Every structure is written in structure tokens, then in C-alpha cells.
């Protein structure tokens, strides 16, 4: 053997060096995988940190869509959805729902009329323990094309550089359409009058194994009544929560769930681009909101409306957002559950 011709000391020294190289290499590979050697990597930590409002993080709250109110209800599937997905939730029947109306802000104390984007988190449970979670918003398309662009948008909006937004818009022209929507779309005075859209695409599999890329929306049964931003502001900072609680006390509120199916070639990976109006749509059922629940110590508090939590028969598509949202939402959830002591859990603890 080669070693036998060397001096034993030299052979031992060589072996120790080899061991050090193997262990050092292993540790370095681990550090690289963890991202410690790649400061430019977009981590969930960075994404969530960039969401922090200028006033600072609201400890214990969701890191975005921090302001909201919880509800329970039922999803009644009409059976038509089985044409696009074998998911149990589309088999005719009633399935319990947990959801949350919310505002697209990281500030839980933001006045309602200062927040342009409204959302709905939704969880539909089926008897065999599967759940379908979704977090939808009311714009017809998303502001940007990629999670990286969304991160840059957050940095640009928080930047002190007066040209930051202009520079951003130059690099991401898709933001212009969203800006136009934000400026011109009518405001409403109620969550019940909002249409909520998945915006992200997902892949549905039917019982024959055929796959279709889809998006979905919840269309309100209530008539939308436009209201000016000024008039909404006059109604009070927390008007929307009060209004929906009162409205649901008066009677359940309903939305029709509509699934749109993409044609080949439609921009399934880019939620900033709508699909043409003539795409096949399937009305799959009705969401009924039966009861408004408190946000602070209600059943939504402990739920992460992670859009990658899907039942069998649905999966994520080439749209990069649901995965990025899943990673960031998990980070937000880990943070806020660790801050539970800072979270006003009961109405009596709440800030005035």
C-alpha cells in the first residue's frame, strides 16, 4: 500500500488533513444550502421584514393583512366543480368554512379608508380531514409579475429616495395597470359587496386525470354600492368590521364561487395578467357567511391561510406566487405565534 512506504507521522498528518477537508467541506455545503453564503437570496425572513410598516411591526399580528375580522359559514358545492377537479370539496354537499375578511395592510390600526386592497382568507374543510385554504383579494389582477418584483416593490415603497417608485415602475411596467385600478376602481362600503379573486393560478385534476390550469373568484350576491373614499373615511376607521357584523346578524351573506379555466398559452405564471373574458367558467358552489367571529380570540387567529394548502385534486401551477406566499406566511405565522403574549387576545385587552 502507498501509505506503508511513507513515514507513519506523515501518513497520520495526511489523514488528519483529509478528515479536516471532508468535515470542512460538509460544513461549507451546509452553510451554502442554508443561504449563509448567499446574502442576495430572497429568503422568507427578508420578504416578511420588508412588509413591516414605517411605524414598526405590530407584534403578534399577521405580518400583512393584519387588520381583519373572522367568520364562519358553509360552502355548498353544486357538483359542477367535479368536471374540473376530483377534490371532495366539489362533490355536491355542504362543507364547513372558516374565513377572514381583511385589509391589505401590515398595520392592524390602519383606518379602513386608507387601505385600497381588501381580502378574504378562506378554509373549506371536507370530511376526510382535507382542507382547501385560499387567500384572495379584490383587485382583478396582481400588482407585479414575480415574488422578486413584489419584494422590490416593498423596498421601493418604503424607500426615502423620491425616485424609487419611478425607477421601480420603469423596471416593472405591469405596475401601471394596478396603479390605474387603484386610482379608478370604485370603493365600496362593505366586505359583502366585494368580489374576491385568487389571482394566482392552480392546477386542477379531474377524475380522468386530465389537468387544467384555473383561477377562481367569489362573486358577491350583494349589490355593490360605490362610495367615495372621503365618505368611507367619514364612517369611521373600523367601519367595515362593524358593518359586516351588523349585516351578517341581519342575514347570511353569499358569494358564488366561479372557476375560470385557462386556454393553452394563457399567462398562467403571471398573476398581473388577466385571462381573456371568454374563457370557460364553471360555477362550483356558494359560500355563505353565517356568523362573524372576533378576530382577536376567534377561530381564525391560529390559522395560516397558506394558499399552498390544497386538497387532493388541486396543486400549485407554474405561478411562483403561491409557493412564495406559503414560505412568507409560514415565517409570519412562526413570528406571530411566538409573540402571542404581545397580542391582545380578548376584547378587554384591546387597544381603545
Amino acid at each position: 500500500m502507498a501509505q506503508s512506504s511513507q513515514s507513519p507521522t506523515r501518513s497520520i498528518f495526511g489523514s488528519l488533513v483529509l478528515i479536516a477537508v471532508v468535515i470542512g467541506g460538509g460544513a461549507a455545503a451546509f452553510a451554502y444550502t442554508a443561504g449563509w453564503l448567499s446574502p442576495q437570496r430572497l429568503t422568507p425572513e427578508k420578504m416578511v421584514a420588508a412588509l413591516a410598516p414605517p411605524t414598526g411591526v405590530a407584534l403578534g399580528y399577521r405580518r400583512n393583512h393584519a387588520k381583519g375580522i373572522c367568520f364562519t359559514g358553509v360552502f355548498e358545492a353544486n357538483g359542477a366543480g367535479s368536471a374540473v377537479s376530483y377534490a371532495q370539496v366539489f362533490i355536491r354537499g355542504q362543507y364547513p368554512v372558516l374565513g377572514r375578511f381583511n385589509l391589505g395592510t401590515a398595520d392592524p390600526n390602519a383606518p379602513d379608508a386608507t387601505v385600497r386592497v381588501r381580502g378574504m382568507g378562506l378554509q373549506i374543510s371536507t370530511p376526510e380531514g382535507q382542507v382547501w385554504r385560499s387567500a384572495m383579494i379584490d383587485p382583478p389582477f396582481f400588482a407585479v409579475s414575480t415574488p422578486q418584483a413584489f419584494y422590490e416593490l416593498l423596498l421601493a415603497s418604503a424607500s426615502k429616495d423620491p425616485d424609487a417608485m419611478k425607477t421601480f415602475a420603469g423596471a416593472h411596467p405591469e405596475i401601471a395597470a394596478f396603479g390605474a385600478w387603484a386610482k379608478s376602481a370604485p370603493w365600496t362600503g362593505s366586505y359583502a359587496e366585494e368580489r374576491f379573486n385568487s389571482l394566482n393560478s392552480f392546477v386542477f385534476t379531474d377524475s380522468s386525470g386530465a389537468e387544467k390550469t384555473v383561477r377562481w373568484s367569489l362573486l358577491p350576491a350583494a349589490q355593490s354600492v360605490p362610495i367615495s373614499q372621503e365618505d368611507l373615511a367619514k364612517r369611521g376607521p373600523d367601519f367595515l368590521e362593524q358593518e359586516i357584523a351588523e349585516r351578517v346578524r341581519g342575514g347570511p351573506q353569499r358569494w358564488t364561487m366561479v372557476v375560470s379555466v385557462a386556454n393553452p398559452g394563457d399567462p398562467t405564471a403571471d398573476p398581473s395578467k388577466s385571462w381573456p373574458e371568454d374563457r370557460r367558467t364553471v360555477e362550483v358552489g356558494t359560500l355563505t357567511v353565517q356568523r362573524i367571529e372576533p378576530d382577536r380570540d376567534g377561530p381564525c387567529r391560529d390559522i395560516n391561510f397558506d394558499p399552498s394548502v390544497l386538497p387532493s385534486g388541486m396543486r400549485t401551477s407554474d405561478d411562483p406566487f403561491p409557493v412564495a406566499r406559503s414560505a412568507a406566511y409560514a415565517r409570519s405565522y412562526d413570528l406571530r405565534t411566538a409573540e402571542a403574549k404581545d397580542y391582545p387576545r380578548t376584547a378587554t385587552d384591546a387597544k381603545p
Partner: protein
Amino acid sequence: MIAGRQRFTPLQRLLHWLMAVCILAMLFIGVGMVSTVMPKYLTLVSIHKPLGIAILVLALIRLAVRLRYGTPPLPADLPEPMKLAAQLSHYALYVLMIGMPLLGWGMLSAAAYPVVLFGGVYLPAILPQSDSLHTLLWNAHFYFAFVFFALVLLHLAAALFHALVRRDGVFEAMAPMSTHDEIARAQ
């Protein structure tokens, strides 16, 4: 020592090397998935969960096999501190192989996440939803992962030390195949 078996049984060696691959993959997948928001995040998470359960099952089988067949004795001339380190690190590795998947499963349960394996197979929650439990288990799962990786490196360093420096047959006892040294010794 002469009376004892010199090597682990073939089943023990198979379990060891199979689990070595699984655990290394698991640790890299874990540390990699939490560092990214890219599409691979979900792919990695969806491997991490079933692989963790596979490691739990393999570790329990391995523990049973270990209790049944025992281990070959360590060399008589191995210094006592090294013997102690070997024994303690093996206990720690067993605790982690069984404990880490349970921590992960418990952590997901305490966060009310569905625990999905391949093909839409769901595991039941083993804990009720709880912020404080989730935080405790999350921290344990996170920090013990680094302890686990450090132990794996230590274990690897010790194995190489036995193989290359001491050449005392300890490495050969777990080597997947017979080595030249061992054949020579046997002769």
C-alpha cells in the same frame, strides 16, 4: 473481544447507510427550504415531511434491531474518553433520529397545518393547536437540526479517524463492504 462479532449484522449496516443518506438529505433539505421563497420551497417541503416520517419508521426498526443484535465491542485499547464519547454520541443520534420527526409532526399539528405525505395520505394531528407549543416545538426542531448536523459531522470525523488513523476495525464494523484491511486481518 475475540469471542464477539467483529461487524454489525448486514441488516444493521443496510439500515445505517440507508439512514445516513436519508438524514443527510433531510438536514440539507430542511436548511435549504427555509432559506428560499422560490418554487423549490414547496418541492422541498413536500419531500421533507414524508422523508421525516420514513426516518422515524426506519429509526424505530433500527432501534429494535440494535436491541436484538447489539453492537460489536469497541477495541479494548480505545481510550475511555473516546469510548464514552462514542456511546454518548450514539445515544444522542438515536434520540434525534426518533425525536426530530416527532418534533416536526408535533409542530405542524400545533400550528393546525395538515400533515400530508405522498399521494394525499394525511397523518392525524398529534397535538392540539397551541401557539406556545408551536413556538416551543418549532424552536426545538430548528436548533436541534443544527445539533444533529454537528453530531453527524462529528460522527463522520470519528469514523474517518478510526478508518485512517487508528485503523482499529471500528469503521470496518459498519463499512458497507469488507475492506482490504479487514480481509488482511482475517487472514
